[in-house]
Each structure stands twice: as C-alpha cells, then as structure tokens.
C-alpha cells in the first residue's frame, strides 16, 4: 500500500491504495465520489470518464499511481451549481434516459469542446465513439454538444 495525494476538483485528497488500483475505485470506494461510474473496467464504455490533466481519461484503466500531480476533474467538480454550458445543454435537451452513462458522456464532451470549440457532426461522433449509451441517447447528446458549443 502506498500513500497518494490526488488533486481532485481543486482540492487535495490523501488516499492509501495499492499502486495498481484504478483511479475509478479510488474515487468511488476510497473518496466516496460516486458520480463517476463503472461500466466495463476495460476502457470500452466510457462510463468512468474523468479529466486528468485536461484530457478525457477512462479512470477504470488508469492506475492511481500514474496520476501524479495532474489535476483530476470529475462530474462533481465540473461546476459549482450544475450550470456548466454542457450541463445546461444536457438539461435543455433532456438528454438522459436512465442516466447511468451520462457523467462519462458529459466529461468526454468537456474534453472535446476544450480541444475543438466548434466540432462538426462527424468530429462529435468520432470523439464520442468510446462512450456507450445502452438507452440510445446519442442524437440528443450530439444536439446538446452543439448547443453548448454555440454558447461557449
């Protein structure tokens, strides 16, 4: 077991964990931050997406020991009042059905818009291809990303 100091949503957190523990389980089990979801554990579904150093990362596949001093942002830290332009767009388009995949979708979209403030349909599709939604909310996700991008 090792001690790690993680910078999450602007705050420092200490965790004691095995070095191979994925960041996902450190967030969920050790820090009680449940907004980031587990869907596949193999970087195949995107439910666990968070930002690490500004990049969208599948937290199920990133060992806590590899995070270092990079800033981690989770859905809980995206905005103070749930009013990040993407969150507002998600609400406006009533994107979620069951909602389970949506934290990951939103975090992935945040990284997309940071890279490319005005993505085309095709760019959105490519960027979001790693985020599965079994309820099939893809078209609303696309619309919400476009709405948010127009407001950025």
């Amino acid at each position, binding site marked *: *077991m090792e001690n790690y100091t993680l910078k999450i949503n602007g705050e420092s957190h200490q965790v004691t*964990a*095995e070095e*191979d*523990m*994925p960041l996902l*389980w450190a967030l*969920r*089990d*050790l820090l*009680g931050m*449940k*907004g*980031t*979801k*587990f*869907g*596949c*554990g*193999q970087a*195949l*579904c995107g*439910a666990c997406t968070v930002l690490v150093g500004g990049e969208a990362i599948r937290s199920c596949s990133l060992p806590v020991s590899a995070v270092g001093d990079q800033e981690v942002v*989770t*859905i*809980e830290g*995206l*905005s103070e009042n*749930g009013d990040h332009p993407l*969150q507002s767009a*998600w*609400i406006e388009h*009533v*994107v*979620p*059905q*069951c*909602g*389970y*995949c*949506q934290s990951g979708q*939103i975090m992935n979209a945040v990284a997309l818009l940071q890279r490319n403030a005005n993505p085309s349909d095709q760019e*959105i*599709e*490519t960027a*979001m*291809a*790693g*985020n*599965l*939604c*079994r*309820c*099939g*909310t*893809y*078209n*609303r*996700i*696309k619309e919400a990303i476009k709405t948010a991008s127009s407001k950025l």
Partner: protein
Amino acid sequence: MRPTFPFFKPKEETDSSKIFKPSRRDFLKLSALASGGVFLGISFQCSGPKGEDRIFAPNAYLSIDKNNLITLIAHRSEMGTGIRTSLPMIIADELGADWSKVKIVQADGDEDKYGDQNTDGSYSVRMFYEPMRRAGATARHMLLMAASQKWKVAMDECHTENGKVHHPDSGKSINFGDLISDVQKMEIPRSEDVILKPFGDYKLIGKDIPIYDVKDIATGKAVFGADVDLDNIKIAVVSRSPVVGGKVVSVNDSAALAVNGVEKIVKIEGAGLPAGLDQPLEGIAVIATNTWAAIKGRKALEIEWDLGENQGYDSADQLKEMLESTKNSGKVRRERGQIEEATKSTTTNIERTYELPYYAHATIEPPAAVAHFTNGKCEVWAPTQHPQWARGAVASALGIEVADVTMHVTLLGGGFGRKSKPDFVVEAAILSKETGSPVRVQWTREDDLHHDFYHAHSAQRIKASLDSSKKLIAWNHHTVFPAIGATSNPAEVHPSDGELGLGCVDFPYDVPNIRIETHESKAHTRIGWLRSVSNIHHSYAINCMMDEIAEARGIDPVNHALEMLGEDRNLSFKEELDGDFSNYGESIEEYPWETGRMKAVIQRVAQEAGWGQNLGGNKAMGFACQKSFLTYVACIVVVEKGGDGKIKVSDVHYSVDCGIAVNTDRIRSQFEGGAQFAHGLATSSAITFKNGVVEQHNFDSYLIARMPEAPKRIHVHIVESMEKPTGVGEPPVPPYAPASANAVYKLTGKRHYKLPFSI
C-alpha cells in the same frame, strides 16, 4: 411469489380506484415529511385472477403541506423510461399543481401498500393513468370546496391553477397550502362527485415534460444501485459457475486471501438445475474492503467445478437442430382454414428461414445491490424493476419473513428486463448475513455478459403460398426457441402461449389459411425477457417475409400491408388458437386489435417519410410494422451508402399510436433509444455458447451501437388519440430490425435471414 412470465401473470387490474385518507403517521413513515399537511391515499380496487374483488392498501400517496410543497410517491421503478415523472405528472395536472413545487419520493417495495410494483411489460401508464387522474381530481375537489366555502361562492365558479385556487369573478386566489387546515377536516368526496378535467385543460399531460431527475443526473448526484454507501461496507465480487447448473467441488483461496484488502471468502450455494429465475448461481464470493481488492482476489481464486450437464452445450449446434426441426410438422398453435387443401393447387411457394441469436441486456450499469442484515432483519438497496419479487426472494433465501425485509429502490442504470430478476439482490443479502457486515455485491461487465438471463435464440421457417392470381392464400409459420419457463421447469419444451402472443399467433393479416406451429427445444442457459421479448424474432421474420411476398406479388410493401390488413375491424384470435390469447394481460374486448389503427400509423409513417419518392442510387427505404404491448407502431428506415462504400442508417421514421400520449418527450425518447437498441440487435450483438460457456466477455466482443454507426436522425410521429394510453418502452424495438433489413435489401439486393447482419 415467483412469476415466471410477468406480462401474463394474472395482473391485478385497476378497475376502479378509491381515494381515502391514510393516517398521517403512515405517510410520515413513508416520506419523512416534516411539516403537517393533507394526505390522500389512493386505493385501487382490483379484480384478482378469478374476478373476485380485492382492495389494495394505498398504491400511491399525495400530500400537500403548508408551504405548498406537494409530495408524490413514485411506486414504479425508474430505469430510463421516465415513469417516475410521468405518473406523478398526471396527478399534478389534475390537481392544478405548480409542477416546480412537486417533490417525488421513491417508494420501497411493498405489496401491501402499493399493489403490484413490477415495472415490466410497458404497462405502468396503461394501468395507472386513470387512478392517478382520480387521485389528483379528488384532491382538487376538496381544495375547491374549501376555498368556495371560505369565499362563500359557488364551487363551480372556482378552478385550480399553479398551486392556487382561483375565483375569477372576484379576482380572489389562495394557495393550496393555506387551505389545508380546512381540507383536513373534510371527508373524502364520493367518487361520483369528482369530475375529471376535460383533456383540453391539461397543462402537463400531452406535453413535453422534462424528467424529474435530469439535473441530478447531469451533475452526478443521482443515486444508482452501486452508489449506496453504508458505514463499514464490504464489497463482494463473485466467481460464478461458468456453466449454468455447475457446482463447486473445491476451492483454494490462499492466494485470494493474500490480496491486500481481501477479508473473507464465502460460498454461495447455487440453485443447480433448474436454475430458476430468482436464485443466484453457485459461486465463491470474495469479500474485501474495496472493489479493486475484491476483483483481484477473485482472479487469484482456484476453483474446481463440477460443470454439470450443460458443459457440452454448443449454441450453434442447437440452432442448427432447431432449424432442422422446422422442416417437420410441429405442435399446431393456430389454425385457420384448410392449409393442406389450399396449398395443393398453389403456383408459387416462398419458403424462408430466419435465425436470431441469444442477446444479453448489457445495461451500462452492471447488476449491483447493497444489503445489511442485522438482528434477523434485512435492509436492501437495489436497482430492481420488481422490488416485491426481490423482497420475497431475499426473505426466502434468508429464511425470514417478508415483513422483515425492507427493499429500497434506487434508480436503475438501465433495466430492459434484466433487473426484474432478483438473483443479484439475493447474493448481497446472503453475503451480508454470512459476513455480519453490510455488503455491496458488484458485478463486472464480464459477469453481466456471462451470467445474464438471455433473450432466447430462435429458428423460424415461414412458407407462404400464392395462388395463380398472386393472392396470398396460405401462411405457415414454424417457430422454435427455448422458453422462458424452461429456466424453472425443464418440462417446458415449447414456447408458452404468452410468448407466442408476442407477435406470432397474433399475425394480423387477412390470409384465408394459416397454420402456426412450434417445435421442441431445451434451455441450456438462463432464458429471460429482453425489451419486447419474443416480438424481436417474430417481428423480424414476419416483416421480412411480408416484404418478400409483396415483391413477389408486385405490390409496394406499404400498400401491401394496408391491403392485407383488410377492412377496418377488430381482430380476435381466440377461436383459432390452441391455448390462450394473452393480449398482454388485458381483455381483447377492452383492448381490441384494431386494423384501422394499424393502417393509420402505416399511412402516417409513409407520408412523413416520403415513402415512394425517388431517392437516387445511394439511398433506400425499408418498411415494417408491429403492434406490441397494445401499441401500434409503423417504422421506415432509410439507409444510405457513403462515399466509403459503408452503409449507414440516415433516418428512422416511426409513427406510433399509444392512445393518449402522456409525456410526449418521453415517448419520443423511448423511440429514439429503442431504435439505437434495436440497431445493435440487428447489426452487431450476439451471445454464443461453446462448452456451455458464453464466448463474449466485454464490449469488445458483445457489440452494441456506438455513436458513429448509430441511426442519425430519428423522427417520431405520435398519432393524436383519445384512446386509453398504452406503453412505449418496448414497442419501438420490434419493427426496427426488419425495416432496416428491408431497406438494406432495396439498396444492395441482398436479403438477410440471420441476425446480426453486418452493413
């Protein structure tokens, strides 16, 4: 309580409802409301299986407090359909509430209080539309009475709106909250005095209403099954028998116990065979302080299994045998006319076979549940579609009374039928009892795909006969698939009446000679129900076949379907069936099969999609229609060949008649999602077995639609209707795959007789 097939178990029908005042304590217990207010319970008078009258205790509660906060209890499970919003919305609308001040509290699983809470079979709105309206209208009546007495005016001069009673003549208005002390003293009005609003007065029903939980979801606050935390909670990850029915022979757990964080190894006694629908599989659970340690601990287990009689099972071999069997005569389940006689002189026979694979539900939230067993009682938190079944299954597994199990229902990260089975909930309960700690059982994706209750694979053969004038005169349909019932009872080797009522024996077309036959097959895995159940394979075969028949007859497929549906009339299948016609648990008199409504959705979708227009060489349309769960749906899929030669679905048009449309936004979202769900079934998903073991492990081998290949635009055309509302969770799925196959045929000239087909 062990429903084998929940759509058709004698459903407690809500014939009439009764509104009454429950004790305040009762309500407080339920919702932990702080301030005093007025409470109304709704009791549904139900006729049980034999028609005897039965009064359920309150099914739903409504309260208004002094601060105008209205609290409604949602008693159905939310898995993405929006039901947690749609039912309360009906009460609120009748009441004239300020929707922004409505709070929704999720009910625990409790049959005595809420009646049947099984959220399955697309029937929540169908069952509760009327009772919810009556509940709202009764409360409104009381508020109007209180205000009119206060103001000494006639009651019918007043109305409610936005949480207030208004008297337009005098310009007076008063908050609901300020009337509650008067309302509390009143008797509940007689139901004949309570008048429902005319439809045109509704402000919420029939509109796009956002789901209640949207902000919590967008901010990561929504609580799903695995999100429940308790002090000192332990995490369990279980190694289950890789083959259904397998048993543990021996375990070497020393390496597992050496993993940092692993505390204990516990054996879960499995059902063996038959596996049943509500019992855990045999397995070894690794109990740890965190999920990662439990996952690692499981990897380190060495288990010797006796895999039992399914260890030689090969699904491809079985499918071949099933297909072969359809060449023979089977058990006749529907018979009309004299098929042998009629086909003696036919000039054209079209005979086709269809094969569909097993499908897994693959909800993005894998099964997970939390249980805490203390002092002979068990408190459970679970994403369950069927809290009462789970409650009963937990009680019987622990050997305690049902009353000693509290079943809290969390949000479900997708259900589609998987989460009606309580096996994973029972695991958590057993492990909590064994360890003396609160336990969360966490399934991984591999667990989910390896140990699901699968949609059955199927083989079908349809032989259609045309006479010399190209009239379709005979329809002979063979269907074979392992029955859901076989999971509990191996003697069930034919599909049940219920499963055949899902798109097979309810074949609606006007053909003078019909024979529908089934053949034997056994269950070698756990068979369950998946979004629209056997409608999936029946609709695929029938709609693809109808497309071929139309072509052989030289008739446009849309016109062909309209012609074959015949005159506007009500169909009844009973007389021609060997067995019952389930009609989704409703009487055929009340919910008839109306060819006119089907024709109307077909005409509408054709018009909206621009059916028949010249699309050029790179685009084509395909058509299918399917009534399921009492909802009429027609579907047109548009496929397009891109510059890279790849085929994509550019547009999907659905026309739907689900009676009164309660929440139009959630109806559209169910169709949007249903198309994506069905796109996976049609083009990429399949579960196969070798040596009794599932060959797919994660989303790299069980493929579901991803955004780049998902249908681009989905247009949902809702027919305006004042018919009784029917469900929309499942009906989008059945027509999609055949409509897309028919479109692909138009574009490429290739027909697909096997799912999934790659495009």
